[in-house]
């Protein structure tokens, strides 16, 4: 079996789907290869184990090794992470774009240009606030932050609300609803269930991709240009497996998060949706928000201190889970090992990161008390339950990041974009340094973790780079 296309796009998430749309609408012959399946929205319950089986890599159980290890998740389905995440949309901050341009010497990188692309994206995926009242777990963040005088806001989402103004009954305008159909309408082909094992490279050019199918057979795909859009773990891993040299996979950046569960007097749990408020008073170093909180996830948040916290588990209808996320100084690595199918991922938190996690969890606990929480259950081994301000002090004293459940859903910066040789894996438009027709166009390119939900940045970067490719005719191939 073999396939051929002018342009091969590996991955169909926020990077791949937007790249495909720009290139197909420009008349190029585009083939998108997706490892996961096409799963219709509404056929699985959001944030459930079933969804994890169907739409996440390795059932959602993936980890960056370290002290502590950091659990992360990756979407593995048509549409990638956009299908499974909370759909919260944050434009990259203007000053951050400026810093990226300066520090990584990104050529022709006009922050205004990116923000005008962001305008288009917001229309295309219907970024909006909720039509009616906010859900109770979201209201907790709002009222707690308001009581403390902390800056907070509702983060808009890529959602439509076809069933009235219930904030929890939105339909995610993910890639399978927006950019992928658009790309296909413009002639792009999408094949699913194929994993690209490696690219065959000859003299600085990739000539074909070797894909494997679930039945064990392989397929060769030839192309003129390839865009690797597998996300910040899979993209560098594929490049490494293919023997690509350069700054690939060495600077994984994430937003490490710690969690707590808070119990209130009244029922508030929303099992299948997340709060839309975020607290940005301490941004960019610290952000607070709400997590998915179905009963299974509430039980998980109590697990670290099960002997003393177990009593709360049946109260899950009155509980919700919240997180404190940090902008980390630490970095991680993605390393492919010969004969191993998946890469080894590591991450090292710095001393300052650990201090921020402690402070973040404490400030979040204070916010919960101000929002009226009866009791707060922080997710780390040896945690006390928190009922008042004195308990917050006890909690800070007992905290250490090594004892905590640290996780992340934002992975980026493994192939940073720019012209600083020792720090950048790809050039100012995402083409891998030293290779004529290999491009990366996903979260791997973001020079650092943006301190906000990164998908808006990913889409804006991808569209910018794809347009540049069209404008220059991919001439450098």
């Amino acid at each position: 079996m073999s396939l051929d296309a002018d342009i091969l796009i590996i991955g169909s998430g926020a990077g791949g789907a937007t790249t495909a749309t720009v290139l197909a609408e420009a008349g190029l012959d585009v083939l998108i290869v997706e490892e996961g399946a096409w799963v219709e929205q509404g056929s699985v319950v959001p944030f459930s184990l079933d969804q994890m089986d169907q739409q996440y890599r390795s059932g959602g159980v993936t980890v960056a090794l370290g002290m502590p290890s950091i659990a992360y998740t990756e979407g593995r389905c048509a549409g990638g992470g956009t299908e499974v995440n909370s759909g919260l949309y944050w434009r990259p901050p203007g000053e951050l774009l400026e810093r990226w341009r300066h520090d990584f010497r990104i050529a022709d990188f006009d922050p205004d240009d990116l923000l005008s692309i962001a305008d288009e994206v917001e229309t295309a995926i219907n970024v909006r606030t909720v039509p009616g009242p906010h859900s109770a777990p979201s209201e907790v963040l709002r009222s707690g932050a308001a009581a403390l005088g902390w800056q907070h806001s509702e983060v808009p989402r890529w959602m439509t609300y076809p069933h009235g103004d219930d904030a929890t009954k939105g339909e995610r305008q993910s890639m399978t609803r927006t950019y992928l159909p658009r790309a296909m309408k413009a002639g792009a082909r999408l094949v699913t269930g194929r994993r690209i094992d490696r690219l065959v490279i000859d003299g600085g050019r990739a000539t074909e991709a070797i894909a494997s199918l679930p039945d064990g057979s392989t397929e060769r795909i030839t192309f003129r240009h390839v865009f690797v859009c597998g996300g910040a773990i899979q993209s560098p891993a594929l490049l490494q497996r293919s023997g690509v040299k350069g700054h690939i996979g060495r600077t994984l950046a994430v937003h490490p998060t710690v969690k707590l569960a808070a119990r209130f007097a009244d029922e508030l749990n929303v099992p299948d949706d997340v709060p839309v408020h975020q607290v940005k008073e301490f941004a960019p170093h610290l952000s607070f928000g709400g997590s998915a909180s179905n009963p299974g996830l509430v039980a998980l948040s109590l697990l670290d201190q099960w002997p003393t916290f177990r009593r709360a588990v049946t109260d899950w209808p009155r509980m919700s889970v919240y997180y404190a996320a940090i902008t980390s100084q630490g970095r991680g690595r993605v390393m492919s090992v010969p004969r191993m199918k998946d890469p080894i991922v590591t991450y090292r938190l710095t001393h300052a990161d650990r201090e921020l996690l402690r402070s973040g969890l404490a400030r979040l606990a204070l916010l919960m008390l101000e929002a009226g929480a009866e009791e707060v259950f922080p997710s780390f081994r040896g945690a006390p339950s928190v009922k008042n301000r004195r308990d917050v002090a006890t909690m800070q004293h007992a905290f250490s990041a090594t004892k905590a459940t640290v996780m992340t859903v934002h992975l980026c910066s493994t192939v940073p974009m720019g012209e600083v040789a020792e720090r950048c894996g790809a050039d100012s438009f995402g083409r891998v340094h030293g290779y004529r027709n290999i491009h990366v166009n996903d979260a791997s390119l973001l020079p650092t973790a943006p301190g906000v939900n990164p998908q808006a940045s990913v889409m804006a970067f991808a569209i910018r780079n794809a347009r540049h490719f069209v404008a220059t005719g991919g001439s450098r191939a």
Partner: protein
Amino acid sequence: MPETWSVPNTTVVTGANGWLGRALVHRLLAEPGRRQLRLLAHSTADAHSLREFVGPRNGVDILIGDVSRADTAQRLLYGVSKDTDVLHTAGVIHPTKVRQFAEVNTNGTRHITEAALDAGVRRLVHVSSNSPFGTNPHASDTFRADEPFNPYLGYGKSKMFAEVAVNEAVAAGLDATIVRPPWFYGPFQPPRQTTFFRMVRAGKFPVIGKGDQRRSMVYVDNLVDGILAAELTPAARGNGYWIADARAYTVNEIVETVGRALVDEGLSVKPPTTHLPTLAARVAETGDRVLQAVGVYQQQLHVLGEMGHTIACDISRSTAEIGYEPKVELYEGMRRSIRWCLDQGLEL
């Protein structure tokens, strides 16, 4: 501007012979309408020296007593009218034994709040600290008006429990407010502060790492402004306020500014040469922690350990709610305190 009360008939000051206490008394003596002052001094010697400081003036009572004893607070507030404010500045920051923290800072405050509640005074102002909140987690982090407790060692813990005692008294009906100064400086300072000037002059002030840690500071007269603003603002009840300069300074900036102030006061200054690695501060902090755990307090170790951290606070709520505006900034404040030291005949 927020609504304010007029000055009370009686103003009670604890720790009146202390550094802050003297600066406060100095101001109160100059304020029209402060008819009765009732000052608490720790010892007979303190009382004598305070009497000398106050000079010949009617309406100033000086009592001798230790706030860590319950009867002292009862005597201090015995028979005062409802038109009385209590300014509670007594505290110990560099003790000889760790247990003094709890005895003076925590128990002392509890005794004062209990006596104030019994006496039915108009307002109690409790002088707290940044220490109940520890240090900032990041060099660019700033403490907001309301922060979770994270006490820094023995002193921090004792001041946290003091705040808890005040809050409990408020819940029981006391009208009290808390002011939180970070590192303060200025006239009436104790000898250890002249060491600070001497170290800067000799280029020996220990700068940790890159010296980019930020420190909120406050000139003692600004602090007095803040205490009196908190005293006289009815709406401050039950709240806590940072009293500091408008912004935090980096350690480098502090050393540079103090150096400049010394030069402008006619003193020679050597360029700073004492740069210590971050590790030194962390080792000192660990040493301090270990010693305090066994009841020993070692001042140099404590100060060095804390130097590696940022302690920065945001005063915007203090400005909005009690009308506190810092009038003297760092350079001017340092010049004034250098001049004060020289006027006292102290050698810098």
